[in-house]
């Protein structure tokens, strides 16, 4: 037992993908809401 945690790539991938997904979804939601608001403004 050399103290190193074996494997772990799945957790790393999970963390990075989650980060990307959450940031993307939130970003898209902000942009969509902004478009709706601008459209409402122009009416």
């Amino acid at each position, binding site marked *: 037992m050399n103290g190193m*945690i074996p494997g772990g790539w799945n957790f*790393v991938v999970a963390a990075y993908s*989650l980060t990307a997904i959450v940031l993307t979804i939130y970003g898209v939601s*902000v942009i969509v809401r902004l478009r709706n608001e601008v459209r409402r403004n122009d009416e």
Partner: protein
Amino acid sequence: MKTLHADNNRFPRLPWILLVLGVICLAIGTYIGLFVAPPEMLMGQVQRIMYVHVPTAWNALLALTFAFVCAVMFLFRSDWKWDARMEASIEVGVVLGFLLCCQGSIWAKPTWGVWWDWDPRLTTTAVLIFAFLGILALRKFVEDPVRRAIWSAVATIIASVDVPIVYYSVRWWNSLHQLQSSPSTVSRQFWLPLRMNAFGILFLMTAFIMLRARIASMRLKHELAPPPGVAS
């Protein structure tokens, strides 16, 4: 109350530039963090999670600190743009905080064998998320814009003051059960991916807050506008 002359739209193109810059920085940081940086001595590959976890932590804290500043500014200046900015930064702060707790959980499982280890910083973040979600709920349920703005500013100040108190009390509470070994120290050769990701998330966060504040300002304008047909 001052009229809504500042729509939070002073630099129309800036958020989009920041979005692109942010994605680029994150992409570079992720690439370096995943494929270039060597695995750490004790933690192995799992350490790589820190390259996103630490930047997310810095930015979540930054967003919520900014929310506190906006709350104070609003109470002193009664300027609507600060209310819009506060709403935006609370929302973004909650999203980043939620992300932070998930990342911390994913890090904890291979490291400690449990999904949650009551680390004071993560626990404080979890309590914070609930507190600020409550403030967002408060905003949803109060219809009068003036009251909504004042009350959520007051609630934000109260919640922000609580943050250090929660942190210290959880740390004390936990220290009796667990040796403190926090996932903090990152040695020098690992700084590059950390910094890249930090800037990446910073740019994204700033862009999100700017765009979200714009949405809030536009909605406020609708709410405060005189009804159609009223002679001006």
